[in-house]
């Protein structure tokens, strides 16, 4: 479902690579956790995967579509939740969702059904008719999540999705992700909450200074470090300066 081959990206002319020859494959039915210290290259990688940035080199395939050669087909396969969702402040929540329904071509009946379900799940029914400018950070996160799932994407990509969510919504989101992969779809998300990654992901990747330094199941990662008690210890050992 997601395939990254030799992806590199450097900003400006400094020559320092934010992402350096990254190879990664995430299959259908898999929840993949993407970890790394601040500034390691997580968001840059995700931005390239969803078409927000162009890689300097390498190929990214989403659901079999090259994001650079067939951008529209690839984007149709993605539901994306950014880390800091900037939204149209002067649209109401429902107008925002309807706009996404229109651009993703979601038929009316399906649109109503999916939106109603997500609004109920995230407790947004009362706020959905208000302008987004009045939403809290968590509510914005929830409306973006609802919008990203509206077209039932084969690949669900989330950058720090738990930030700002209340405990109930956080649990609901995890259930939603599990339900998504149970239908053979893919979830890829970055997080700093190592406990979530440890308990919840089928596989985990650790990026450090733009390079993927570890990737695999928890069992496989334990084989790479000396202190294997928890993912936190493994992470700290592998990313030690």
């Amino acid at each position, binding site marked *: 479902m997601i395939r990254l081959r030799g992806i590199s990206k450097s900003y*400006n002319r400094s020559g320092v690579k934010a992402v350096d020859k990254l190879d990664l494959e995430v299959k259908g039915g898999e929840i993949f956790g993407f970890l790394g210290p601040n500034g390691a290259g997580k968001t840059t990688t995700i931005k390239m995967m*969803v*078409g927000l940035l162009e890689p300097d080199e390498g190929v990214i395939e989403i659901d079999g579509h090259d994001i650079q050669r067939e951008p529209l087909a690839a984007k149709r396969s993605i539901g994306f939740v950014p880390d800091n969702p900037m939204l*149209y402040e002067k649209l109401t929540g429902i*107008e925002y969702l*309807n706009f996404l329904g229109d*651009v*993703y071509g979601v038929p009316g009946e399906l649109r109503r059904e999916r939106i109603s379900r997500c609004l109920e799940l995230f407790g947004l029914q009362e706020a959905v008719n208000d302008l987004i400018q009045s939403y809290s950070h968590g509510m914005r996160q929830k409306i973006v999540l609802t919008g990203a799932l509206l077209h039932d994407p084969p690949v669900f990509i989330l950058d720090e999705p738990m930030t700002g969510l209340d405990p109930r919504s956080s649990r609901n989101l995890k259930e939603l992700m599990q339900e998504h992969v149970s239908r053979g779809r893919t979830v890829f998300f970055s997080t700093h909450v190592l406990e979530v990654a440890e308990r919840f992901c089928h596989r985990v990747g650790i990026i450090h200074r733009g390079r993927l330094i570890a990737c695999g199941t928890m069992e496989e990662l334990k084989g790479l470090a000396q202190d294997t008690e928890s993912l936190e210890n493994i992470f700290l050992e592998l990313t030690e300066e």
Partner: protein
Amino acid sequence: MKTNSLWVLIKLNFKVSFGLAAMRYYLARRDKKFMTGLGIFALVIASFLPLFFLYMRLVDAVYEATAPLGQEQVVLTMATVMASVLVFFVGIVYVVSAFYFSNDLPFLMSLPLPFSHILGGKFAVVLVEEYLTVAPFFLSALWIYGTRSAPGSLFWPIAVFSFLLLPVIPLAAASLAVLVLMSATGLSQRKDTLRLFSMFFIILAVVVLNYYLARLPEGNELAYVQSLLQDPEGLAAYIARIYPPALWLTRSLASAGAAALFNFLMTALSSVLAVVLVLAAARRLFFRGWAGGQEAPVSRLLDSRELERHLGRVSSPRWAIALRELKILIRTPVYLFNSLATLVIVPVILVVPLLSGGELALLIEELNRPGLGGVLNLAGAGFIAIMSIFSAALSSSISREGKMFWLSKVIPINPLQQLQGKLLAGYLLAALAVPLVLLFSAVIPWKALDMIIIALLGLVACFPVLTSNLFVDLLRPYLDWDNPQKAIKQNINTLLGMLLSAAVLLPSILVAFWGLRCSLPLHLIFFLIAGISLFIGGIFYYLIARLAQTRYAKINV
């Protein structure tokens, strides 16, 4: 401690608003984008030079005409009044955005700082921006008067301080109006709408007031004009009726010795008083207006029928984008104001002077003169096209997305289709001029066919204006803004768009004049204008279509 915090805030605002820190960073790195930006800024300034020289000649001509009467100082009054009125109008929009919609306000409000100092910092930034507005008007008048009238030794030092003081009072007046307005509407449910209408109302009220103040007394026109010419200060006093402090400023520059100093002191004191008033009003009024904007509305659960109504309308992607553009533009006062203000203000400026005396009857008689029909049709179509020049809707349409542009990059809609949606929204806004022109049919003998021709020709003539404006914003959108005003008011693309609009309309205007002079058949002139408009607009549309994909890919947020 308190004065110090005001100074700290002024410094902070200067660094943030004028990007001083960012500029140093870019300059040190010799950033290509920054250098291109500087180049474009220089180009815009250069393209205004012909207009500036034309204005200089006008000031010079006024000087020549008034010097024999000993009233040459009127050039200073004229420039002061023009610049001050402009500062007031432009200031209203600047002040609303800076005082109430800056992104750093929630942060600043949480610090132990008095409101007066927070707004003092914002006021200082807007004041500095206004020097750009007043400079061409006032400096040219100072130069012509200073070099031609052999003024006293105090002239140049006073001139420098006068320039610095000039925008203070009108900007303070705009700030006071805004503080009162925002405070009064702060608790209203529909505050955005109310505030927008109030802003239009203030501007219209000032336009109407100016007209009535500047009117000659009916019946005694001749005697009044004679008295103006005989009194050594007659013309200056007459012009300064619109804005009385202009007379002090004129006297401080045109008089010598004690009189000059006294009038300068009056100007300086009234400017200080105006700022003190703004700071005092900020202490009392600011919080209520600002807090009103922060309050979340009372939420209401949507029942299934309402949800059905909201979600039942499925649109095509282009139409969805056009609707998104229009909704956001209409609901953001600063966007709406800069896109549609001229559509409201220009007709008022045209109509108000006609409502007094017998001028309206005379005009109707003149317009009904036989043989004028075709010219009036061209004028009607021209009005629609020219109105579209003053709308910043398309020259800022990508810029207005700001940090939200990530959505445009991730949705599976071809960039060209997205731009077509924006163009559609721009066309719908431009079409608002059509009913306005048709209203003139009350005084102009237009038939139904005339009105159809005017509407069609006007909208076709808008095509190059709209496509060229969108092209400008596509080339170099300004997305890194922290308050919506910067996306439209401080966006050089809107200025470039206006210049380009004038340039692309010029061939049609020239053809119209040439055709009328050569007595070409009217329908031929219509076809020529339509052809030229479609051709020029087509070129820009072709460029947009060619560049859409690559430009969208290169724009990073």
